């Protein structure tokens, strides 16, 4: 155990850094995708509602590992070989980010839809009756209230996404699990390697969920 930490500690830490980078990039784009499709699902427009529903159903209906292979191998093959004339190569980071963003974005979209719908319609009506546009009423009145109820689910989704980065070891991105596999192969110390990796995830996720609890408490002031 000590030998792994002294010899491979730095390597594992930098792999953890890449895990966090991947998670952060994925979450950043997931928030944009989630907000976009979440809004599409709540506005009064059948076509937009259906588009959003199809997106969510499609992503939720496919395991993330399939999505990862599809983006990393499938998409370049589609353009380069089937259609032809392209020369697209995706790095594992690009494909991984896209995969996480789409996957997490679909769940975020549902969280945002539910959050907005949990706000009493009277809030929107009152804002509109004062002459505010739909967008301003949404931004100033509905969304701030929706976000309060969404925070616990969003944090939960963040944690799931952080853990889901491990799935992206299959497309060769050198995140924590992929790196640990190499450490195990070099040292044959399976128990020690995976125990250390487990604790590393545990520490990061505990810090994340504790700070989320604090944030939640602060947002509830004045409620």
């Amino acid at each position: 155990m000590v030998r792994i930490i002294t010899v491979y500690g730095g390597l594992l830490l930098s792999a953890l850094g890449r895990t966090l980078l991947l998670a952060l990039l994925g979450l950043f784009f997931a928030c944009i995708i989630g907000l976009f499709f979440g809004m599409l699902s709540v506005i009064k427009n059948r076509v937009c509602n259906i588009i959003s529903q199809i997106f969510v159903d499609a992503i939720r209906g496919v395991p993330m590992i399939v999505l990862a292979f599809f983006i990393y191998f499938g998409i370049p093959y589609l353009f380069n070989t089937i259609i032809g004339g392209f020369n697209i190569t995706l790095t594992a980071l690009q494909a991984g980010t896209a995969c996480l963003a789409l996957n997490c974005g679909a769940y975020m979209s549902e969280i945002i839809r539910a959050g907005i719908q949990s706000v009493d319609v009277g809030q929107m009506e009152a804002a509109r009756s004062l002459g505010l546009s739909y967008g301003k009423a949404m931004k100033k009145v509905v969304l701030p209230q929706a976000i309060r109820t969404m925070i616990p689910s969003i944090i939960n989704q963040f944690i799931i996404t952080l853990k889901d980065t491990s799935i992206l070891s299959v497309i060769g991105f050198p995140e924590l699990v992929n790196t640990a596999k190499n450490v195990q192969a070099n040292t044959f110390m399976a128990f020690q390697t995976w125990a250390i990796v487990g604790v590393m995830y545990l520490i990061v996720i505990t810090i994340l969920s504790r700070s989320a609890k604090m944030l939640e408490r602060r947002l509830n002031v004045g409620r």
Partner: protein
Amino acid sequence: MDAKDIENKIHVENLKKSFGPLEVLKDISLDIREGEVVVVIGPSGSGKSTLLRCLNRLEEATAGKIVVDGTDITDKKVNINKVRENIGMVFQHFNLFNNMNIMDNMILAPTQLDKCTKAEATDKAKAMLDRVGLIDKAESFPSQLSGGQKQRVAIARALCMEPDIMLFDEPTSALDPEMVGEVLKVMKDLTEGGMTMVIVTHEMGFAREVADRVIFMDGGYIVEEGTPEELLLNPKEARTKDFLDKVL
């Protein structure tokens, strides 16, 4: 557009409104003069709230015409936000913005719509809060207020936009009995200021006191209308009599 349409503050012509297969307003025509106080009464499900909500297009009319201040609001091209700036609305469930304190509730619309600077809006909001007797609640949150206080704030908030029409959708129905009086008093003060008001209510005593005209609705139609004395004391229609017997 006819001259008659412009002369009246609100002109409703053959208004119909359906929710799916359910026809809530069947054929409503109505004219309201500037400064008139109209009280709409009727059993639940008669369409009175729906009529009120059509007047600021919170509900889209299925057919017919609604002209407010010379603007046909059933016209899809009309900027309804602009029209709504002049139509205040007070709801049964107050609908104060829960994420803001009272002062921010009051100044949100005036500042967001660039009606005035934040300082001017704050001054006006203070004056309005003073008028409804709640100046000490400016920093409170809606959850810290009683129902009656919330509704007084809601009225004051609508007044901050300086509307010339006020719509009241059962403003006292969600209140504890001892808080009804304070809200009705604020509304009564408003009628004395010459505001055009349309009030949906079950408070018959209040209707008698402040209304220029009372309208009785049932089954999606206006069954009868007249002065409070005519309609509340000497109703002509059997359905009106029947309703009044039940509520008085």
